[in-house]
């Protein structure tokens, strides 16, 4: 569905032709967001607008500054670029405004599925999608004579063969760094095993169960085939292992696929063998053990209507279909923009969307559970305690935090 819609939209854009739009605004625009290349392009796009000042503050610490920066009146930032995990913090503090009237007035280039609606109100405009999926070395898998794994069980079997044949000592890669990354890998595996983070309709945690234990057991088995330092490896370090030719199979972010082997000094066999595929399933489940993500922008509540309108115009201009004409920009992300034609690097994310991967939960208390998972699972991964104990610790840590925040 998802792919077909995109392709159809692409055809329509070609027919309509790209109209070069001028972007005129009359009030201040100020954007805060993360700093990866796709967002840099969006920020630069907003700054093309003339008539009033457009400033951007794109930094990895954006989550620490966007809430205070939008709480003042008038707010310092008129727009925050966020993802489905981080829009929740803005929603919880009620600092972003519904965009329905602005979409009706200026949003003719936006597609229906770009509009993130909550309770029937448009709260954000998404522009790119992301997911973690399989990245592998085709040459190594060919050498051991197996197909790219479709399940984590296949991945383990392939890893064993690679190690037994002495091709690589630690053929599996994974961003298992204690903290956010480790928790994210658990989320993937847990959802793939059929788990659900909360008891239906409440903020009560629901991870200390069979799915949770199975997810942890699988992660532990995978870690046997990882570099022993895996608890310090974030996605950057994991990619570095892949580039050095030490890793043959890993679960990696789709947004990294385009540039994974373009760095200086990557050996030729790694460049040639690099391949990607959709996310894997686990434990016989039908839904992939991964999560879907989107990135989008919002407009602040505590600003004048003129500033909100200018912000909307500038940000819409920044993600207009014409930006895809630049081939560098087109490969920076899996764009949700009208007219995007998937590049080879986008295959994994599209496969994830088609296989009904579950989107990362957009719940007010998900962030607290994510933090609790990140802090408490490392003990299990080091073999210091049982899976049940680790999951009980996670729930206890989450409950303490959720009580503090008034969620329980």
């Amino acid at each position, binding site marked *: 569905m998802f792919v077909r819609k995109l392709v159809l939209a692409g055809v329509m854009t070609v027919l309509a032709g790209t109209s070069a739009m001028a972007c005129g605004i009359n009030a201040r625009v100020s954007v805060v967001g993360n700093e990866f290349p796709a967002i840099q392009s969006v920020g630069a796009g907003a700054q093309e607008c003339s008539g009033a000042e457009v400033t951007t503050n794109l930094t990895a610490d954006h989550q620490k500054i966007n809430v205070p920066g939008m709480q003042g009146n008038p707010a310092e930032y008129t727009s925050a670029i966020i993802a489905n995990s981080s829009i929740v913090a803005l929603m919880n503090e009620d600092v972003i405004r519904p965009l329905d009237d602005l979409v009706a007035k200026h949003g003719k280039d936006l597609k229906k599925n770009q509009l993130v609606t909550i309770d029937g109100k448009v709260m954000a405009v998404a522009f790119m999608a992301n997911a973690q999926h399989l990245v592998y070395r085709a040459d190594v898998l060919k050498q051991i004579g197996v197909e790219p794994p479709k399940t984590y069980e296949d991945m383990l079997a392939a890893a064993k063969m690679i190690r037994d044949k002495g091709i690589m000592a630690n053929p599996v890669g994974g961003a298992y760094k204690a903290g956010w990354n480790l928790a994210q890998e658990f989320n993937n595996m847990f959802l793939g095993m059929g788990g659900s983070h909360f008891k239906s309709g409440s903020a009560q945690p629901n991870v200390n169960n069979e799915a949770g234990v199975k997810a942890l057991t699988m992660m532990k088995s995978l870690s046997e085939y990882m570099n022993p330092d895996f608890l310090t490896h974030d996605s950057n370090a994991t990619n570095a292992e892949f580039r050095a030719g030490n890793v043959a199979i890993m679960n990696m972010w789709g947004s990294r696929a385009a540039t994974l082997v373009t760095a200086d000094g990557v050996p030729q066999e790694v460049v040639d063998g690099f391949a990607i595929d959709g996310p894997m399933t686990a434990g016989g489940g039908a839904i992939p053990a991964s999560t879907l993500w989107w990135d989008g922008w919002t407009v602040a509540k505590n600003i004048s209507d003129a500033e909100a309108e200018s912000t909307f115009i500038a940000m819409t201009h920044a993600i207009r279909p014409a930006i895809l004409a630049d081939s560098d920009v087109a490969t920076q992300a899996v764009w949700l923009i009208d007219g995007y034609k998937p590049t080879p690097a986008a295959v994994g994310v599209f496969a994830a969307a088609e296989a009904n991967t579950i989107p990362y939960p957009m719940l007010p*208390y998900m*962030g607290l559970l994510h933090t609790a998972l990140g802090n408490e699972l490392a003990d299990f991964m080091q073999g210091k305690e049982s899976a049940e104990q680790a999951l009980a610790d996670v729930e206890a840590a989450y409950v303490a935090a959720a009580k503090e925040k008034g969620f329980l």
Partner: protein
Amino acid sequence: MLLFIATPIVSVTVQSMFTPHEAVFLTVETCTPFKCTEETTIDQEATAALRAEQPLGRFVGLDIYLDRGHLAISEVGEAWASSQNWTEFLASLSNLPFYRAMSFTLVFIFTVTPMVIVLGLLIALAVNSIYARLRGVVIFFSLLPFVITPLIGALVLYWMIDSRGILGNLLQWMAGDPSLSLKASTGLMWVSLIVYGIWHAAPFAFVIFYAGLQTLPQDQMEAAQIDGASRLQRVRYVILPHLMPLVMFVTLIQLMDNFRVFEPIIGFNAEAHATSLSWAIFNDLGGETRQFSSAAATSVITIIGVAILLTPVLIRTWRDFRRKV
């Protein structure tokens, strides 16, 4: 000046006793680029009304201090009741975030501080006895680990102790174990952090002691020599007493800084093995949903902890001070 420090201290204390209001939830249809689902969100109107009534939030007294994330009174009680012996009790204690952080912090403080003083003193004595012409160069290189930005210093060492880094390889070769990795074992990670702590702070102690040695009263040294005191005795009975105020000063600074150990944990990616109170604050403020009350409570605990650690030193300073007056 007071405004900038006193106000935050007061506001942090206040914040640690208030928490956000009970959230009022609504279940609404949420549509993302992928699909539409029923999701829970916060009822902003109801929450706004609650906020208008009590802008500070709910008053919870010391609840935050006593919850699982901090002193964990009820969990400690349970562990005490259910444990058969001390080992079991300590094991369940180290499973609680606050006590896990404290166990590393205390080990760090009480190994790094004395080692820094001893090493600093040895370097100062050694440098003081080499040829004057060489001293400049030696002092220059000795000061580098201290002036280097802590985050950068930690990163540089972290890169070197990787199992494929030069120090990592050296250690593997010396231990005769090619699979040895400093980053994979809690014990070795603690050792690395402690070594970093000493490496970073020893030059500070050195330069203070070295400066102290320059004001060493020569007549006393000569008198001791004439009385037939050996080299060791001269160090013990003349040099050390002379340097004592400086030792106190270095101890004071070291206790305080080591209690707040933070940059090495971040630089070494050591979260899985070692945490500290400052790291806990950083972690509370760094998540998708920030826990201000929890961070505030940890900050107040940090200040109290520093106060407790410094009490013996401060009492001594107070006595000296009274004597001078």
